């Protein structure tokens, strides 16, 4: 990726949370440049401000200093071209799976104002997306009738339904068992190859980062700084078989050593 194709720019961004009698320095002088359609993973010890980084990019938080820019525009409030998924699926329990996936379309323009008129069209789109992640037949089920993995699949669909240019994932598979998690890596990779949004995945699973990402940033513990940037050169689509090859294991080991250094340095 060359610098001028960069889609998300962070220029010496710092973030300090202030409460009445304390302040927490969460992020320190973060500089990143992410190309359009690039898949970036951010790894680091817990409490290093990875989630804060996502909230900065999404506009949920504003930087204390420095500039965050998406698509050439400085971020000054919640982005309308982003989708987000979290560690908890955060589905609305009073809505069926289908209605949960449709939620962003009822909020984000231009879909919101034509939603009622074109409901059939939007529903078909949501059904297609659910089918793509293997949830055909579960459209009318409620979230509490689904397994954790199924909930997380629905959550991914909800993050993608309005075709955001940026997809921000905050440890989306962190609460799942290992088998389901590895299966969903494949699902996520397929979705990404299908639509090529710019992705930022926050995770503490190094194998997950290597499996999915083009570029991996390692962050230090609080205050979060970028410690290193690694490119993953494995060809796509990557498969679970690839995870046992030495080209896969080597970067995972290298990352693990870096994380140990980061944690030891604290």
């Amino acid at each position, binding site marked *: 990726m060359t610098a001028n194709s960069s889609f998300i720019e962070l220029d010496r961004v710092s973030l300090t949370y202030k409460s009445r009698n304390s302040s927490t320095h969460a992020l320190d002088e973060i500089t990143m440049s992410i190309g359009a359609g690039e898949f970036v993973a951010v790894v680091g010890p817990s409490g290093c401000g990875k989630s804060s980084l996502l909230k900065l990019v*999404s*506009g*949920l938080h504003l930087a204390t200093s420095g500039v965050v820019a998406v698509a050439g525009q400085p971020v000054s*409030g*919640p*982005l*309308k071209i*982003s*989708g*987000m998924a*979290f560690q*908890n699926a*955060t589905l*609305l*329990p*009073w809505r069926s799976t289908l209605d949960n996936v449709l*939620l*962003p379309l*009822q*909020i*984000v323009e231009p879909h919101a104002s034509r939603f009622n008129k074109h409901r059939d069209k939007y529903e078909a789109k949501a059904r297609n997306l659910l089918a793509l992640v293997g949830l055909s037949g579960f459209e009318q089920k*409620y979230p*509490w009738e689904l397994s954790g993995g199924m909930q997380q699949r629905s959550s991914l669909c*909800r993050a993608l339904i*309005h075709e955001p240019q940026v997809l*921000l994932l905050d440890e989306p598979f962190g609460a799942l068992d290992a088998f389901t998690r590895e299966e969903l890596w494949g699902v996520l990779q397929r979705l990404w190859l299908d639509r090529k949004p710019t992705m930022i995945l926050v995770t503490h699973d190094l194998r997950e980062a290597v499996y999915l990402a083009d570029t991996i940033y390692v962050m230090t513990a609080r205050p979060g700084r970028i410690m290193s940037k690694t490119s993953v050169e494995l060809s796509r689509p990557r498969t679970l078989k690839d995870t046992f090859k030495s080209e896969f294991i080597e970067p995972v080991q290298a990352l693990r050593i870096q994380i140990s250094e980061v944690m030891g340095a604290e």
Partner: protein
Amino acid sequence: MTYWIRRTVPIWATILFIVFWQVFCGVFRIDSFILPAPTEVVQSLMQYHQPIMMHALQTLFTTLVGFAMAIVFGLLLGLAIGIERAVYDGIYPMMIAFNSIPKVAIVPLLVIWFGIGTVPAIMTAFLISFFPIVVNVATGLATIEPELLDVLRSLGARKHQIVMRIGIPRSMPYFFASLKVAITLAFIGSVVSESIASNVGIGYLMMAASARFDVPLVFAGFVVISIMGIIMYEMTAYAERRFTFWATRANDIVT
């Protein structure tokens, strides 16, 4: 088999209670103006069924009108308090102060303002039953998971969209739970008002009966109020199951 035993337990328990009461009155030869036996209460119910019906309908009417007002105002005020911090800060202390005034003490004032009869009964039912609705709806809004808010905020949702899509549906279980409390309170409110300042309604009927030492009729009044209370409670409970099944789903496993 166990299913039917469980379903019919309330009926058996009630029958057992009535039988015990009957035997108790018979064995100890208790005078009917102290504690009438169930048979005497039933007799009184049959003898006076026409006036009882008339007064019961009046009480049902005032209760339901007061309750309906409480739903409308309670819901609106609860939403306002839950959504807007300034409204909460401004109104909540006053509401707590107001709620701690015994409603019996307000009835004479209502009589001065509105005269005796229907209006004070409606107002008392309203005043006594709208507080739990307000508190519950506001609580429902205040306890929304921040993660759910983040989902909408990250989509750039405006405040009214957040309220419509999350705030209101999320507070509905709290709202319906409060209705079960509110409907019984509304009955208490209108009966209290009727017994102080009215010439219609079950409350009045019972006051008049006790003045004549017609204790079986007083008990007949209790029975009628209880039955109306149970029916209305069941109707609100049904509405709760119907509209917020997603919040009470765990209860289905029991049966």
